[in-house]
């Protein structure tokens, strides 16, 4: 008997008569934010901002017409000289760049160039207010995973309509067939005396721009 058959046989034998019974799953937990947490759409956005900031990630709100300037300002602030961006990043996001070279990931940027880049600018698929999370799924304006992993700085642009209240709302919106990366603040280690220390292997700096219409 091969290992597959053997493991499955053991599982079936172990379960015996209870095999396949489905205990009811009580799902009394909240799917949406409560009135107390966020009564209005503006409250949802405010909660997202507050929660991102709790991770000590920089977060700012900008109007759609200010986005180019805000992206440029953020990159100047970090003294970035060369950044990487997904091939399909909207042109307007980088329109105000001056003195910063943006390499589009087409053809795919090689790993050394990626490692030498001063940052990456992307969009996201969904953002979660309650947890201050941005989720990337490799879709429009997000690129492949390595772009937002290897450089030490990630600037993520979030459209206001991408922000949902809760984790259940985000899970419902996301397609698990896609490569998903949920990002909540900068990289952290608990390896030293189990205290939270920022700056491990992922980007040390995360910055979020929320674009409101």
């Amino acid at each position: 008997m091969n290992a597959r058959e053997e493991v499955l046989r053991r599982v079936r034998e172990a379960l015996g008569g209870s095999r396949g019974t489905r205990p009811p799953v009580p799902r009394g937990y909240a799917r949406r934010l409560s009135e107390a947490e966020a009564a209005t759409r503006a409250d949802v956005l405010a909660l997202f901002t507050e929660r991102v900031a709790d991770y000590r990630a920089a977060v700012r709100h900008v109007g759609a017409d200010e986005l180019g300037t805000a992206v440029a300002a953020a990159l100047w602030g970090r003294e970035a000289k060369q950044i990487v961006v997904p091939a399909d990043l909207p042109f307007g996001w980088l329109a105000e760049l001056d003195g910063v070279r943006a390499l589009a990931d087409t053809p795919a940027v090689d790993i050394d160039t990626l490692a030498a880049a001063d940052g990456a600018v992307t969009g996201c698929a969904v953002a979660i207010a309650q947890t201050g999370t941005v989720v990337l799924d490799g879709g429009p304006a997000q690129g492949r995973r390595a772009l937002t992993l290897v450089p030490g700085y990630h600037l993520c642009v979030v459209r206001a309509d991408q922000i949902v209240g809760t984790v259940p709302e985000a899970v419902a919106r996301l397609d698990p067939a896609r490569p998903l990366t949920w990002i909540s603040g900068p990289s952290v280690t608990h390896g030293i005396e189990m205290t939270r220390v920022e700056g491990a292997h992922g980007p040390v700096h995360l910055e979020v721009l929320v674009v409101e219409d």
Partner: protein
Amino acid sequence: MTGPAPGGPVPPPMPKFAAAARPALADTGLRRTLRGATATLRERTAAAAAETADWEDLREAGRAVGEGALLGLDTHLEELERAVTEAGGTVHWAVDAADARRVVTGLVRETGATEVVKSASLATREIGLNDALAGMGVTVRDTALADMAVQFAGDEPSHLLSAAAHRDRAQIGELFRREMPAAGPDPAGDPEDLAAAARAHLRERFLRAQVAITGANFLVAETGTVVVVESEGNARMCLTLPETLICVAGIDKVVPAWDDMEVFLQLLPRSSTGDRMTPYVSSWTGVTPGDGPRAFHLVLLDNGRTRALADEIGRAALRCIGCSACLNVCPVYERTGGQPYGPVHPGPIGAILTPQLRGVESAAVASLPYASTLCGACADVCPVKIDIPDVLVHLRGAVVESRRRRPVPTPEMALMRGLAWTMADPRRHETALRRGVRWARLLSRGGRIRRLPGLLGMWTEARDLPAPPAESFRAWWNRTRR
């Protein structure tokens, strides 16, 4: 041949919990480190749970989803295999540790790689993978900061959140300076500095790695999706940059449906570090062309899990989502650290998992269910409501049953049986009580007993026992009320 056989490391003999705990108890520095670390995490996780208005609803859902996952495990595993395969991955099955080592070493050999990067995985430690790979000339780089420290020191991991919970910053700094002088951490052992040193040391290795080995927090059967929850980004490096990704996971990591992640992704971060969300949650389904590894292998490991599954009470342990909340609230763990629990699964959850995965034949493993006062703090915080004290008592029963078959009863068994025989009958009990009181009063001086003989001597090592008054309660009752 004297050394471990290639591919088959022999685990060192493990002492009983009480003996293994002694060095930790004597190490005041260690106790200070553990006390500080667990206290901080207790506060953070308690605050995170308190902030969540529907916390009890989430726990209840987590329990039920976990139970359902186990009761339909055969179907879920087949579904998982189908979905992973359809998405371009390959699924391997391993009955035991040797099986799993054979699969993984075979896969690594095929790639021709001489170095692999690895992100935290209890399953790979459980199967002794590092030694097996080393035996065939492949260098394994553990990449989580604490795992690096443990690997450098040749230690066993001591906590689920941080394998190096038993070492303070100065000790980690020393290990880092010794093993990676080029990364040059500051001698003061400043945590930010140590993190930066780990980052610098592993950077090139991540960028050049051909093969990565990782664990999994969840395997979603319905969609074939692997979910990894981590803070450092080392797992992201592993699952993103190399050509080949090998994931080793216990069959107990299966959850039925993608929607179930909405429960666990709320429970796990809050119970683990007290974060609303752990910095990185990565998931993948098979391979994605142009993004990440080109080859993905999932190794599904039994290695005793079906034995636990067969136990209606004990199987609750398989619901564990690895948050480590039970460690942080455990008054025993706080004083002993993780090492006395054996090489893989520390803390209260380890005390119920290891005896089930490995059986209770050895005295060391049989001592684990007794490494608890049954205070119940762990059950209070478990995000999937594993009643750890209940399983501990159940496993103690299994230990005693296995000892009943021995030809000569242990002194303890003789004592406990005799006690039960006496107390099952009120008249025998009363006679024994009278005798016991007389005997105990002979041992006492000044109203207290400072030394007891035999098994009870362990009590008087550091504690007195009051001398029993001449008249027991029932004697008083009979004298005054009858």
